[in-house]
């Protein structure tokens, strides 16, 4: 309960900040912004062409989204492990 009282308003604000743009721009594509770099850089220097295509191991957007999920999952697992471990340790001390 203490946690809810302490952080409740933060969580509400976070949700508000992240959902506001979705309400504001219901039909925006929220573009994967890196792709649009071309237009901005080339707006300044029309002759510029990317000089390196990169060593993308995977091209499929589906596979890439899996890796994004994997990255988040790895991060969240470590955090979850730490939080659980710390809570358990604390309870052991109390007992």
């Amino acid at each position, binding site marked *: 309960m203490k946690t809810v009282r302490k952080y409740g308003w933060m969580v509400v604000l*976070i949700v508000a900040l992240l959902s506001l743009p979705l309400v504001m721009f219901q039909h925006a594509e929220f573009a994967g912004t890196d792709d649009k770099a071309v237009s901005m850089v080339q707006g300044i220097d029309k002759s510029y062409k990317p000089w390196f295509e990169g060593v993308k191991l995977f091209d499929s957007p589906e596979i890439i989204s899996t890796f994004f999920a994997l990255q988040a999952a790895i991060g969240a697992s470590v955090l979850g492990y730490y939080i659980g471990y710390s809570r358990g340790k604390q309870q052991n001390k109390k007992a």
Partner: protein
Amino acid sequence: MNHSIRKITLAGLLIMLLVPQSLYAMHIAEGFLPPQWCLLWYIVDIPFIIWGIRSIKEQVALNSKIKILLGVAGGFTFLLSALKLPSVTGSCSHMTGTGLGAILFGPATMSVLGLVVLLFQALLLAHGGITTLGANVCSMGICGTFLSWGIYRLFTKLKVNRSVTVFLATALGSLFTYCVTAFQLAAAFPGTNGSILVSFIKFISVFGITQLPLSVVEGFISVMVFNFIQSHNAEELTALHVSNQPE
């Protein structure tokens, strides 16, 4: 009700007009810095990475339990930088997650963790790039983390409330990361009259506005995680000289 939605939509449209090319944020894409700039940023990074590897070794030797916190800092960065979030410009960007680690371990250690995350993203996610890795490590792993760490140290000395300090340090570090990105692009692509400033304003008006609300979100999340660490690993924080000041 309908009226207010219309107002908000109008305001949104106005912002979009003010920021006509509001669609580029996040890291610099592969091939989008000329070779000499790629090289320059790589060279800038080298001393920090060497310093970082040394400082990780020292910190782990301090106290074996610090390893778990190192994992937390890395995991936090992994999680936060994987989430592309919508922003008020109608485009999306992501948080950095490096500010929290910078407070715990200092900027040098985080430059190494930043390198790991950015390498993962460049190779597996087609996000960022190998050629621009140097520039991206510099903005996210070095400049942003140095600012976070500096603000944390300064405000702790000034005895500002701990949560406020953590919030400002992480939020401003995240925002600053993208200011540096804007600068890196502006330096490589100055305006038609050769003015870096004109170009910088163009890039920053995009990066800054897109990142602003996300920085606030990052600040809040960092405060929650930091407070948890403080109440469960106080000893380790003292060993790292993070919390030897009164609450």
